[in-house]
């Protein structure tokens, strides 16, 4: 055993070496959930505990028989506090995406995949934070926000948290079973807007996120919230500027933009 690594990173029970976040670990797929068209959640089981803050991400690495490797980043979709060995990642199929296509076409229950993390320590929410929280997500940008919302629920946190989620259609909406616990009616802490094809009889918003929409949600907070914004560059640029104009402190607006990294 490498003494230097033991000294640097400590030992667990005096026996097992604790792995670093950047060590590759092998996860075995135990569950695959269809979330929406082109969007699936995969649960991976490891032989060591999983622990991260909501909003952190993991890398999946694939290796071909000739040694070629490709890797992609995926946000954790479910909180993990170290009491379980499982990790849930929600994965969107990207056009011509070599990693997501492989996962959608080849990965089954029992498949083994190399994963490392948690990575990134900025776009994170933990129940230790005391500011009210506004989560704004578009499309698959909801994935890390869903993790934050569940972390908030699991911790029974008393800080107000609201989610504003923009999806094209109901069919494209991820996590419907959580966000719409009663068919067609969003949970109290969730505001939906459908930008293309709302469900029949939908009474809510049917447009892109704008200043009025954000203004209405902001009035529900007792004090200005910390904001987490995740989605396409277009959505994030628009929403973050509107939040600054609405008076939020730019230092309390965290953003994650995704473009077309296949």
């Amino acid at each position: 055993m490498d003494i230097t690594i033991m000294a640097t990173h400590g030992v667990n029970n005096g026996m097992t070496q604790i792995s670093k976040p950047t060590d590759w670990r092998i996860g075995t797929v135990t569950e695959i959930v269809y979330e929406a068209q082109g969007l699936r959640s995969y649960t991976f089981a490891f032989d060591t505990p999983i622990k991260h803050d909501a909003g952190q991400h993991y890398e999946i690495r694939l290796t071909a028989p000739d040694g070629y490797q490709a890797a992609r980043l995926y946000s954790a979709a479910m909180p993990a506090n170290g009491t379980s060995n499982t990790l849930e990642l929600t994965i969107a199929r990207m056009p011509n995406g070599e990693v997501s296509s492989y996962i959608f076409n080849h990965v089954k229950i029992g498949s083994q995949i190399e994963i490392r993390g948690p990575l990134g320590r900025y776009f994170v929410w933990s129940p230790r934070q005391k500011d009210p929280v506004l989560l704004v997500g578009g499309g698959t940008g909801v994935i890390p926000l869903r993790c934050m919302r569940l972390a908030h629920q699991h911790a029974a946190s008393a800080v107000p948290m609201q989610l504003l989620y923009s999806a094209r259609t109901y069919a494209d909406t991820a996590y419907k079973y959580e966000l719409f616990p009663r068919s067609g009616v969003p949970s109290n802490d969730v505001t939906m807007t459908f930008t293309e094809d709302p469900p029949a009889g939908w009474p809510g918003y049917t447009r892109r996120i704008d200043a009025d929409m954000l203004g209405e949600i902001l009035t529900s907070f007792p004090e200005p919230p910390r904001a987490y914004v995740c989605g396409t560059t277009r959505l994030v640029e628009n929403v973050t500027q509107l939040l600054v104009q609405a008076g939020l402190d730019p230092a309390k607006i965290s953003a994650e933009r995704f473009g077309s990294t296949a």
Partner: protein
Amino acid sequence: MALVNPGFKSPLSRDRRVPPGQSVVTSWPVLTYGPTPLIDIKDWRLEIDGIVKNPQELTWEQFNDLPKTTMETDIHCVTRWSKLGMEWEGVSLDELVRFAGGLSDRAHYLVAHSYGGYTTNVPVEDVLNGRAMIATHAEGKPLPPEHGAPARLFVPHLYFWKSAKYVKGLTFTSLDHPGFWEVNGYHNYGDPWREQRYDTDL
């Protein structure tokens, strides 16, 4: 040896300009941790301070009076995309250091400061001798706001978070001062060819 994933194939051809673990994009993704700061060019300043002989504060006009340089090169983002064969234009760090009267022997690091509060650190030898500039144009056009307008540090041989957007200050120091991402889990140096992505990567 890494686990081999059955059925996963390497691409038919791979460009030798692409570092390990990177994929080529034709679009240009945006990564910024917060809102894009909107900067009025009238208020823009570039401060050059720390261990330089004559600290300077340049206006946009003064900055643009300096000789421009271009670099045709590739950029590599730690989030695993690379964009190849871009043309960038700006003022080299050599030129800016010369304008500030040169560096003291004790200047070992550059700390770049940005509007919005972002910082990043780079060893001095990585920004001199034509290796870095303060860029104002990419692909023949002024930088768009989301890519760092009006000017960003450009150090293309390191992962692109080192190329600080919205730059407003260059401080030369004798000691290293890890910046925003460098204290938030990312590597202190960030060489794409050695895959120095995260703080525990070698």
